[in-house]
């Protein structure tokens, strides 16, 4: 016999509190949060540089010549995931794309039981170049680097991690923006 479905209509405390008088209009709240976040841009840039340094240590000390162990690849994923989050948050598009590409490479290597160092190392070099050059790197230079990284991923035929993931509108409905 199947389990009977019980349905509740809870009124959450969040709903009650948010409906109180006062509070901030949406645009003001978002602007305020953006301003607050912007104060962290410098620290975030340093954090990205620190993470790239961590990646450089991983690729500089492989367990065997030109090989990366599973633990090292898992560390690459963990560290690079944070770079993706930070780069995206601060609109560092080139870094964001390069870091996602590195995630795809590390994930692909892990899934196929491979241990190649080179595709990871070239991504780490690209990340360092883009992070240290910052705005000094012209858009054409960024495009060239990203194009080369895409060739690496294509060579291995790795599937992007984001492939097949539900679209945003499946994860959240139309938002109630009316006052």
């Amino acid at each position, binding site marked *: 016999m*199947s*389990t009977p*479905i*019980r*349905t*509740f*209509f*809870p*009124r*959450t*405390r*969040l*709903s009650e*509190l*948010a*409906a109180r*008088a*006062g*509070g*901030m*209009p*949406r645009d003001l*709240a*978002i602007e*305020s*949060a*953006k*301003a*607050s*976040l912007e*104060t*962290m841009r410098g*620290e975030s840039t340093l*954090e990205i540089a620190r993470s790239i340094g961590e990646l450089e240590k991983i690729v500089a000390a492989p367990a065997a010549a030109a090989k990366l162990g599973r633990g090292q690849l898992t560390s690459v*994923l*963990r560290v690079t*995931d*944070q770079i*993706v*989050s*930070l*780069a*995206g*948050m601060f609109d560092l598009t080139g870094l*964001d794309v390069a870091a996602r590409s590195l*995630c795809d490479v590390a994930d692909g290597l892990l899934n196929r039981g491979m241990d190649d160092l080179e595709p990871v190392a070239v991504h780490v070099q690209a990340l360092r170049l883009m992070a240290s050059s910052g705005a000094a790197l012209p858009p054409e230079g960024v495009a060239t680097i990203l194009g080369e990284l895409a060739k690496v991923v294509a060579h291995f035929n790795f599937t992007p*991690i*984001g492939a097949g*993931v*539900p679209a945003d509108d*499946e*994860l*959240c*409905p*139309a*938002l*109630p*923006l*009316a*006052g």
Partner: protein
Amino acid sequence: MAQPRLNLKNVTTLLVDSDPFTRGLVAHMLRGFGMDSPTQCETGSQARHYLENHYADLCIFEAAQPDMPGTELIKWVRRQENSPFRFVPIIVMSGYTQLRLISTARDSGANIVIKKPISPQNIFDRIMWAARTTRPFLDAGEYVGPDRRFKTVAPPNGQYRRQSDRAAPRGGAVENLQRTNAAAERS
């Protein structure tokens, strides 16, 4: 059109993310919305311990914690039958490498899943949605959590064909709507 407003003062938030720097950034955003500083936990077990002794009005979890899958923490919250916090809105943040966990996070009882990188706009809108929508909460044995059907208004009868309904990706939601419509017609 009037700007929607939310009064988030005194809303208590539990923020769980393994990375302290990311937690700090999210906390900055929340304070920008006028919220109090969130309680921050690094692991799922820390979050469980906190929730056993405190209440939170809103939970923001990373999709995977270092000591347990994020789904385990969500399911644990949803199965606290004697506690009011089983109904707490849960927002899950998924990093790029956690994207494959999105569907399982949603199906374990999260209200909303956000893909990182998060922005003030997308997190504010999701909080607003969680606060302003009345969504039934289901306890169906295997699934405990908010109704995963996003549309609360049933479409007119006869608008859907059974074959295409079965191809719909939302776990039989359309079939359920049809059954509801049929029952309403009979009564």
